[in-house]
Structures are given as structure tokens and as C-alpha cells.
């Protein structure tokens, strides 16, 4: 029998606010344990939460960017369970009436039609603290609680079970990742857990309209692991059914070392979270005006920008895709176009030399030593015939190292292109004289040798000879 996988994703997005969601403590990562705490995030008796407005603004932005409607009156709820890293014994989250509802993202796999993936809801919630084990200050081989992370703001983005393969899941996840980082509301760091994903996976016979029993896979913290975990889980469930077994509803943990999932807790062991509206927080009222203001403040989104690059700048689809991979890269590119004018030329350089150098040195585009203005200047030197495209690469490497302007480098190193036909003719004459055999071959009809002569001339001129002039003169002279 053939099986159809059905996948839904729950993504936790840690928000880049300066302070926590319900108190004024900083959200900085990596500080001394429990140094960023107060009565509220420690869950002390008598402390009360006060909602950070910035979190609401970020949530609205995320919602509008994923085609959600913004709930005019949304409610915070308590999710009750005991765990030492959860100081109040409940997590403040949203249950009924979350801030964003009924959105979607369009994904497109290579060679396929675009597909719309539904987003059920986006809600705001606080993160828990974390447990540390081992030798702690004043405690040998013990367990400690660090509440610095407690009360850090999160968005949970819940998709509809519309995904049908691991590739679709990864594509959806990448797009969501791109949007939240593009908006600047999340740093997107999956290793540090700023963007983390749980996958609900089930399988059903192809053609069936009854969903199979799902397992929730937790702890998948990279795009690669999401693909691995989902594929493993699909195969596990199919094998189980084929062997006459049944899939049980449970929570499973992905082990990235083994590439496998294993059972964490069954449905019977699942918590009854006893959600109810948090009486300490009043309903959050968001009027139409607030939504419209947020909509106006939204940056151009990656999909819109990609389209504009194609239609207005005339870039090929591939280039537009690559250049909108992240907001900083697209902004770098646009600054280059603004300074130079030829979008395709700038695109080639950004996708070529710039990207290669960034990757080789592990530099972020924001820290690129060659600014868009300097890049444009370099391209203008090529356009004006001052240097050849080949020399430009040498100049670029020097720009990268020294940060100097291209015209300074060209001058200092005497890299100005030679277009003077007299000088080039002299070089050609010398080379033809030294390679009489090849001249004969060419004249005998072996035109391939032409390339050999071009190479020799460029070599002799240290790359400075104008290739167009070289070509023309060589043709004339070889034909005799």
C-alpha cells in the first residue's frame, strides 16, 4: 500500500525584545545564572505580570506578514503544570482567542506549482527557565534552576496539517524563518533555540480522507534535522502499520546523533494543562487603527521584493531568489544598484565575488568590508574601460583586504588597462615571432590556436591589455 504523510509544524519564535514579556528584566543571552530576574519572573508570591507592548507589536507584524487576521480582543491563559524551571507552576500563554488567526504562506518546491500552507494561529507566551546539572557553586553533583530565560517572549506559530512531505515542511519552515528574521523580530538562531520546531506527523493510505494517528516530534533544531526527523518518523509509522501494528498518539524526541525518534511520553501520561483565562491580565484590545499603523510600518517582505527585482530590475528569477535570501543582502544589493545603475552587473558581483568572500571569511553581509558604494565604483571602472573584468577581481581582493577605494588601488598598483594599439601590437608581434609554428597552424585552418595567442598576450601584458583590442588586433595580424 502507498501512504500519504500528513505534517503540521509548531514553531517557537523567540522575540528580540530588550526586556521580558511580563517584567522589565533584560533578555540578554549568556549572563550569570539568575542575574536577570525579579519577583515577577522568579514567580515570587504577590508578583503580577504586566504585558510588554513591544511583544504585541512584534506579534502583529508576524501575523500581518503571514496573512493572519489580528484578533480584536485576545486573551492570555494559564497553562498549568509542575516543573522546576516553571516558576509559577503555570506558563502564561494564549489558548482561546490568540492574537493572530487564520493565516497562510505559499511555498514552492522546484518544478512544482506553488502550494498554500494554512497557519492556524500565532500566540504569545513566556518561555520557561532552564535546569543545569552537575557541579554547581556550593553544590556538588546537583541540579540547579537558572531563571534568566524565564519570561522571555515567544511566539508560537501553528500550521495546519497541510504539509505532505519533509521537503514541504522544510520549505515552509525556511520561509517562516526568513520572514521573522527579515522583520527583525527574531535572530533566527536555531542552535541557541531562538527558532525551534516541533513536528506533528501522521500517515494515511493514499486516497483516504481519514487522518492517521499523529506523533509529535520534539527537539528538531536545524532544517536538516527537521527533514531527517520527519522522514524517519514517516518510515517508522509506515513500517509499524505494515507489520500489523498501530501508531499511538505520543510525544517523541528526535535524537540528532542517531537520526531517530524515540518515545518521550504517551497520551495517557500527557498533562491536563487546565487552561483558563489569566485573571491577572486584562483582555488585550487591538483596534483597527493599531493594526493599520503596524501594516504601514511593515517593511517590504521578501516575496514582494523578489517580485519587484524581477519586474522592475529585470533580474532572472534565480537571481531575485538568491538576492532576497535575507534582508541585509537584498538591501546591500539595492544600495549597489542605486549607486551603479546596472542591476544585473551588480547582481553578478554580489552573487559572485561578494558572496564567495563572505563565505570564505565567515563574514556577515552587514560587516562586508567592500561597501555597496565601493562596489559600484569598481564596476564603473570596468564600464569606463579603465580596468578589465579580470583585473577587477584582483582589485576586489585588495579592496576586501585593505578597504581601500578601487581607484586608489588601480593607481597604486598601475593596473590601468592598456588599450593603446601600438603597445599591444608590439607585444603581438613579439609573440608571433616567438611562436611561428602556431602561426602556421592557425593559418592552416586550426582556429582553436587563437585562444593560445590571446592567453600569451594577456600574460605578457600582466592582464592589463584591453581584451577587445587584443582580439581585434590578433585577428588582423594572424590573418596576415
Amino acid at each position, binding site marked *: 500500500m502507498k501512504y500519504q504523510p500528513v505534517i503540521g509544524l509548531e514553531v517557537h519564535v523567540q522575540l528580540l525584545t530588550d526586556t521580558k514579556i511580563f517584567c522589565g528584566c533584560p533578555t540578554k543571552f549568556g549572563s550569570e545564572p539568575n542575574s536577570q530576574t525579579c519577583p515577577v519572573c522568579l514567580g*515570587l508570591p504577590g508578583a*503580577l505580570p504586566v504585558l510588554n507592548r513591544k511583544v504585541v507589536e512584534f506579534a502583529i507584524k508576524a501575523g500581518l506578514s503571514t496573512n493572519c487576521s489580528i484578533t480584536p480582543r485576545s486573551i492570555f491563559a494559564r497553562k498549568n503544570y509542575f516543573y522546576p524551571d516553571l516558576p*509559577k507552576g503555570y506558563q502564561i500563554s494564549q489558548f482561546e482567542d490568540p492574537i493572530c488567526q487564520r493565516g497562510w504562506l505559499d511555498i514552492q518546491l522546484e518544478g512544482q506549482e506553488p502550494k498554500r500552507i494554512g497557519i492556524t494561529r500565532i500566540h504569545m507566551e513566556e518561555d520557561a527557565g532552564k535546569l543545569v546539572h552537575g557541579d554547581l557553586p556550593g553544590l556538588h553533583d546537583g541540579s540547579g*534552576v537558572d531563571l534568566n530565560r524565564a519570561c522571555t517572549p515567544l511566539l508560537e506559530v501553528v500550521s495546519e496539517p497541510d504539509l505532505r512531505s519533509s521537503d514541504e515542511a522544510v520549505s515552509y519552515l525556511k520561509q517562516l524563518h526568513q520572514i521573522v528574521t527579515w522583520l527583525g523580530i527574531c535572530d533566527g538562531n536555531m542552535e541557541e533555540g531562538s527558532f525551534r520546531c516541533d513536528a506533528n506527523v501522521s500517515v494515511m493510505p493514499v486516497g483516504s480522507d481519514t487522518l492517521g494517528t499523529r506523533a509529535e516530534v520534539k527537539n528538531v533544531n536545524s532544517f536538516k534535522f527537521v527533514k531527517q526527523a520527519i522522514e524517519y518518523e514517516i518510515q517508522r509509522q509506515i513500517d509499524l502499520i505494515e507489520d500489523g501494528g498501530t501508531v499511538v498518539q505520543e510525544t517523541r524526541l528526535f535524537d540528532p546523533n542517531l537520526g531517530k525518534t524515540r518515545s518521550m511520553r504517551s497520551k495517557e501520561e500527557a498533562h491536563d494543562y487546565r487552561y483558563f483565562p489569566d485573571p491577572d491580565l486584562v483582555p488585550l484590545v487591538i483596534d483597527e487603527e493599531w493594526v493599520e499603523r503596524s501594516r504601514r510600518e511593515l517593511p517590504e517582505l521578501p516575496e514582494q521584493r523578489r517580485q519587484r527585482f524581477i519586474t522592475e530590475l529585470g533580474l532572472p528569477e534565480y537571481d531575485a531568489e538568491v538576492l532576497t535570501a535575507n534582508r541585509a543582502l537584498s538591501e546591500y544589493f539595492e544600495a549597489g544598484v542605486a549607486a551603479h545603475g546596472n542591476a544585473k552587473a551588480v547582481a553578478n558581483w554580489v552573487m559572485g565575488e561578494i558572496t564567495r568572500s563572505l563565505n570564505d571569511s565567515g563574514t556577515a553581509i552587514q560587516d562586508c568590508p567592500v561597501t555597496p558604494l565601493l562596489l559600484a565604483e569598481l564596476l564603473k571602472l570596468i564600464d569606463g574601460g579603465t580596468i578589465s573584468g579580470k583585473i577587477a577581481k584582483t582589485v576586489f581582493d585588495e579592496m576586501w583586504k585593505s578597504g581601500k577605494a578601487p581607484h586608489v588601488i588601480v593607481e597604486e598598483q598601475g593596473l590601468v588597462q592598456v588599450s593603446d594599439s601600438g603597445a599591444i601590437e608590439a607585444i603581438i608581434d613579439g609573440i608571433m615571432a616567438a611562436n611561428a609554428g602556431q602561426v602556421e597552424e592557425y593559418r592552416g585552418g586550426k582556429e582553436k590556436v587563437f585562444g593560445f595567442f590571446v592567453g600569451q598576450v594577456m600574460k605578457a601584458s600582466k592582464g592589463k591589455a584591453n581584451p577587445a583590442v587584443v582580439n581585434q588586433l590578433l585577428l588582423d595580424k594572424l590573418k596576415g
Partner: protein
Amino acid sequence: MDTIDMTIHGLHQALESKQLSSVEATKAMLARIEAVDPQVGSFITVTPEQALAGAEAADRRIAAGDMDVLTGIPLALKDIFLTEGIRTTCGSRILDNFIPPYSATSWEKLRDRGAVLLGKLNQDEFAMGSSNESSAFGVCRNPWDTTRIPGGSSGGSAAAIAARQATATLGTDTGGSIRQPASHCGCVGLKPTYGRVSRYGVIAYASSLDQVGPLTRDVTDCAIMLGALAGYDHKDSTSVDLAVPDYVATLPNGIKGLKVGLPREYFIAGLDADVQKAMDAAIETYRRLGAEFVDISLPHTDYAVATYYLIATAEASSNLARYEGVRFGHRSAGAEGLIDMMTKSRSEGFGAEVKRRIMLGTYALSSGYYDAYYVKAQKVRTLIMNDFIKAFADVDVMLTPVAPTPAFKIGEKVNDPLQMYLSDIFTIPVNLAGTCAMSLPAGFSADGLPIGVQLIGRPFGEEAILRAGYAFEQATEWHLASANL
């Protein structure tokens, strides 16, 4: 007049005219506490050093001419208010070692005006009770008859006034916890409108019902205290940003033409004869003072107690989850492993009534029961609120009994929680409706036990009930009687 018998406004005059220093007044109170507390048990913690330091600071302010009506006044707080550096137990063993790192907003407000802290008062554990008998720190007795309960949960706050151990006190009221003990101990007790006073730093029992309020010797003191406590607090999202009126200034404005509602559901068969008598006399007094009486109905009154015990316990079951021995409070010594530590710490730390309510509330919120209990209770709560809104279209205030009987005997209802819960039938609806009400001394039983009547006001209508209470007080002498202790 003895210092310990003075009201806030009386003591203020004495301090202002330098007849007395705050240190002298404070020492007199501390001596009184030492003398009578073994009989009464109002206090869980007495703080003589802080009290004297506070009094000295107040005297310096008075000498410098920087004086407020509360400067130098010796007060005490229910042990539910967090006080920085001073143990705060909430009447529970689970917090018997808890020293808070911060203070409740309401105490900070009083302290900043120069009030002096005498100590922390006895109460039912986590404010769950109507007799103060669920306290983990010993019984608190009614100063009018020490074989009887002072009421609860703010039992110590009322008993301390009646026993003249503090000039005024703070309590909290979730279902009657200020008004019922005030009635039983013969003092004035006000539950302000929900949102009028910050809850920040007050240990939560049922967050949507809890409200801070004063217990005092007379209505003027009550108005002074409310003026100091009321106001928006950015640390409490449920506090309301509404101007605070001068409650004292409008007290003498009289009540001519005041429309007083008598909700017929509150005059039930089985109401204690002495309570009925006090009510009749109060109605007569008000009639004489020029009030008009209107017969009104609050039709959903019968459902109030059941509704309250679903909502309050549901919220409590969640509010009390943080007491598990990990970060503060009692941690069981004999535990093995995490779950065992949490379970044992809670089993050892909480008393029977608290456990009962945690279980009730957990049940009401459980999957499969949530709609039938919690959601339905919220719907009934809305109906009860609507009862009040409708009734207040026709009247300015309502007059009702506070409790169906005067103070009962210690131990009388301990084994009958349902009977105990019915002590609050006249006070609970006010909390569910979120509005304000005050208990006012209005007579004595044949056995000499104080009986209070309740004035219920519109939301944020504290001025009206204070004014009505003040007029009553001017016409009667019940508030001047004092327990023979």
C-alpha cells in the same frame, strides 16, 4: 483618652499638637500587644524594632513639619502583604521561613506617608476561611468573647482593632474576608471596588476577586485609609486608572434623599434574630436621617456561594502551584527526587482547607469538567454582576446584613465546611460583582457580640457608602463601644 483607643484622626491631632510623639504611641501599642496578644492571638509576627525605627523617623518628619495624616500612626498588616525583610507567612506553614525581597504596593504607600508597622496579623491560611481557624500559627480569638472566632480570613486584622493592638489594619477580602470579621469584632471594614487598590505584593488567593482594604475604628479612618491606598499601579494590570476622590472631604455631606435598596433575597428565613433586630434598627435610623428605601431584587443570589467556590478555588489551584519548595518556602527534608520533593513539600506545608480548595479548583478546571464547572460559573458570575447593575439603576446604595449570625464558637463549624462557607452568603455576591461594600458596627446580640450591617455601593462608588456610613455613625454610638479585655 488612652492612646490605644484613639482613631487615626484623633491620634493625628495629638501628634500634630505635640501632645504625644509617635514613639510614645507606638510604645503604648507594643505594650498592649504584649499584654493581650497571648489571650487574643492577633499577631503572627510583632516587629518592635521596625516599629520604633519607623516611629522615630515619623517624629523627625513631624518635627520638620513634613506631616501627613498617617505620619506616625501605628498600623498592622494581615500577613498576606509582602514586607521586605520581614517574614510573610500568609498563615501557612509552607511560608513559615519566607522573607520577601520586596514590599506590597499598598504597604509602600502607607509607609511613604510615615505610617509605622507594628507587625503582621493572623489570618486563615492563604485567606481561605471564615473563622481564622485554618491559620497555621494558632487560633485568633474574638476580643468580645475569647471562646469565639473573630471571623475570617482577616481575623487578626479585626481582632487587633477590637483588642486595641493597632490604630488601623489592612486586610484582604475575596468573599467577605474584611467585612465578616469587621462585623464580628465591631469595627469598620471596607472592601473597595475591584481595581481600586493595587494587588501587587499581596499573596494571591483568587486573583479576580481579591481586593485590599482597611479595617478601622470609624468611618473617617476608613476614608483616610482608602484615600492613601487607592489609585492606579503600573505593576498591577487590573488596577484602574481613575482619579482618587477626597473621601474624607465629602463625608459630612449628608444622605438626604439617598435611595437605599433592600435586596429581598438577603432577608431570608433563618437569619439570626439579633442580626434581624440590628438590621431593623439600622433601617429605622436611616429612615430618620432622610433615606428613601426601595425594595429591590438580586435574583441570582442563591447561586453566589456555589459560583464563588468554583471560581475562587479554580484560581487558587493555579495561584498556589508556585509553592513547591524549589525557590522559597518549606522544602521537605526527607524527599527523594524531584516529584517526591514537590509532593512532600506541598503535603507537609499546606493545611486541610487549602488542600481541599486546591483539589476542588483543580477538578473544576480539569479537561472534561471545565465547561460544566468553570465556564458555567463564569456565566453565572455575569448574571450576578447584571443583577447589581440593574438594581443600581434604581438605588444609590444597598443595605444588608454582613453575616447571618454573630461570631460563632471556636471549633463549632470546623468539621462542617459547607456550614462554614454559608457564613459568607451576604458578602460573596459583592466580590463576584466586583463592586464595593463596607461593614459598619450596628448593634449587639443578646450575648453582647457585635453585629455589623453592610452598605453596598456602585462600582467605584466608595464615596457614597462612606458618606452613608458616616451619617449612620453620627447618629449612633455602636462604634464607640469597646471590648472588655
